[in-house]
């Protein structure tokens, strides 16, 4: 009997009851990867030897009654900007094609210490920004709901692999929406934690003042299990918050009764007009949370375009600072999309960058004032159902505002949940946003929504 696709919570129950062998589970994950990857390109590298070694160790603990917790023996993939000791970490780029790190990224190590089994490295937009690209050493990942469609990015392979049930979870990074976008278009749960909650040490940077790391999984409950193992202070990361790791699990099932929720309706209905299914999904989310006992009302923030202008200018300049040396010497080794985006970034002046950081402070102030009366906010996660992968504009983020970057600017936790299905049976998603370090409340609301609805029962046909 096959264990995949399955949730972490379900797989753990089977492992804890000794009804599922971690070695058999790892083998099944690798077999699924070999079968599905030619169509999905979710993985750029499988690591069967590492996986089976880790799975055997988990199985030994299982037999000794010494499991380390709910993640022990669970297969996982890592986005290929997360460094993995002895395993190439390339950023999906020719520029770092032969880079083999000596150490694991802090969060990779944290999941390994929790007993997770690394099945392979996952596709990403080049250095978490350039994609979907067809001129890199590996092709772009495809959406399991329809392989002609885009996964969104930049955590493309994570979205594809989890939606296809190859692994129940994977790492993502989120600088402008790179966890929440793939979670939305692939029908998953994904949380961008509060900036500073999870270490970025050993993760190839995109934009230092915006970068976060977090999990993508099938359910909110799984995200909570994963984030609990990732969260915590890392002295090696200057952005890491020096505070105790929060308890994300004890209150997960407490529901939303009495929570005050603001819907940023103008973001997705006026500033950016989303498709009917996406809009209906946000309304559905709000109605379910209201029925569960939350107080829901509309709120107003500065225009979405202001958040995007500020966010993208900061992101572009900080990314340019990372890549500047290689642009001089290896410009043609980058894919077309990333090298052209980085070239555009050279137009932004030092004064522009500081003005953007000043505008950021104003926007953070407006958000903080709004959050005085709200525990959570809601808006859409993406503009539409997944578009055809060959019709995504090179400069899409400049041509139309996105719905996710506002919460990278403020550092708030923001999660995507699947709110239903639209054109072509493709999934749609909405965001739940909380107070800084209020990640537990965001997860509580997402879990309440999933518990009250049946969307988690539907998987892509390809995943059967």
């Amino acid at each position, binding site marked *: 009997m096959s264990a995949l696709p399955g949730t972490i919570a379900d797989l753990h129950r089977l492992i804890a009851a000794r009804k599922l062998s971690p070695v058999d589970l790892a083998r099944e994950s690798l077999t699924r990867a070999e079968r599905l990857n030619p169509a999905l390109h979710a993985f750029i590298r499988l690591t069967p030897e590492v996986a089976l070694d880790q799975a055997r160790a988990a199985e030994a603990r299982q037999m000794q009654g010494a499991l380390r917790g709910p993640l022990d023996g669970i297969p996982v993939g890592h986005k290929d900007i997360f460094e993995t000791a002895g395993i190439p970490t390339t950023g999906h780029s020719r520029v770092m094609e032969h880079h083999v790190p000596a150490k694991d990224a802090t969060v990779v190590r944290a999941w390994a210490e929790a007993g997770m089994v690394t099945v392979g490295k996952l596709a990403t937009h080049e250095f978490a920004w350039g994609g979907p690209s067809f001129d890199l050493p590996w092709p772009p990942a495809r959406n399991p709901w329809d392989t002609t469609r885009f996964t969104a990015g930049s955590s493309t392979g994570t979205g594809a692999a989890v939606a296809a049930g190859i692994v129940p979870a994977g790492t993502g990074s989120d600088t402008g929406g790179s966890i929440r976008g793939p979670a939305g278009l692939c029908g998953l749960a994904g949380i961008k934690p509060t900036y500073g909650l999870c270490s970025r040490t050993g993760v190839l940077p995109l934009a230092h003042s915006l970068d976060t790391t977090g999990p993508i999984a099938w359910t909110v409950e799984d995200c909570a299990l994963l984030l609990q193992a990732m969260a915590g202070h890392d002295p090696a990361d200057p952005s890491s918050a020096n505070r105790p790791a929060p308890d994300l699990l004890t209150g997960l099932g407490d529901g939303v009764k009495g929570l005050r929720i603001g819907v940023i309706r103008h973001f997705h209905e006026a500033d950016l007009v989303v498709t009917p299914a996406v809009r209906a999904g946000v309304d559905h989310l709000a109605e379910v949370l209201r029925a569960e006992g939350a107080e829901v009302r509309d709120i107003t923030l500065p225009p979405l375009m*202001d958040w995007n202008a500020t966010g993208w200018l900061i992101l572009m300049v900080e990314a340019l600072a990372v890549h500047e040396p290689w642009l001089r010497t290896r*410009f043609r080794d980058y894919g077309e999309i990333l090298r052209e985006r980085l*070239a555009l970034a*050279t137009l932004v002046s030092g004064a*522009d960058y500081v003005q953007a950081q000043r505008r950021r*402070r104003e926007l953070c102030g407006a958000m903080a004032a709004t959050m005085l009366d709200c525990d959570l906010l809601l808006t859409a996660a993406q503009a539409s159902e997944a578009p055809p992968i060959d019709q995504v504009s090179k400069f899409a983020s400049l*041509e139309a505002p996105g719905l996710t970057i506002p919460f990278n600017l403020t550092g708030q936790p923001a999660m995507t949940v699947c709110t239903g299905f639209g054109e072509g049976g493709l999934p749609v998603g909405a965001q739940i946003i909380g107070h800084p370090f209020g990640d537990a409340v965001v997860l509580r609301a997402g879990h309440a929504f999933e518990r009250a609805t049946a969307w988690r029962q539907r998987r892509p046909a390809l995943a059967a």
Partner: protein
Amino acid sequence: MADPYPEAVFDAAMARAGIVLTEAERATLIGVSRHIAASTARIRTERPVGLEPATIFVPGQNT
């Protein structure tokens, strides 16, 4: 929508970064530069002269 960056400004930025573009790339990016111009204009609101950027930090915390 804003105008694209003047060609001389664009060429100077590429030269300073050491980036050599093909003519086709240059033409594309000059056209797209109107979005950068629009963004840099949008962030310049009326504000107190002393407003601090968001990146200001407290010495001793994470330093």
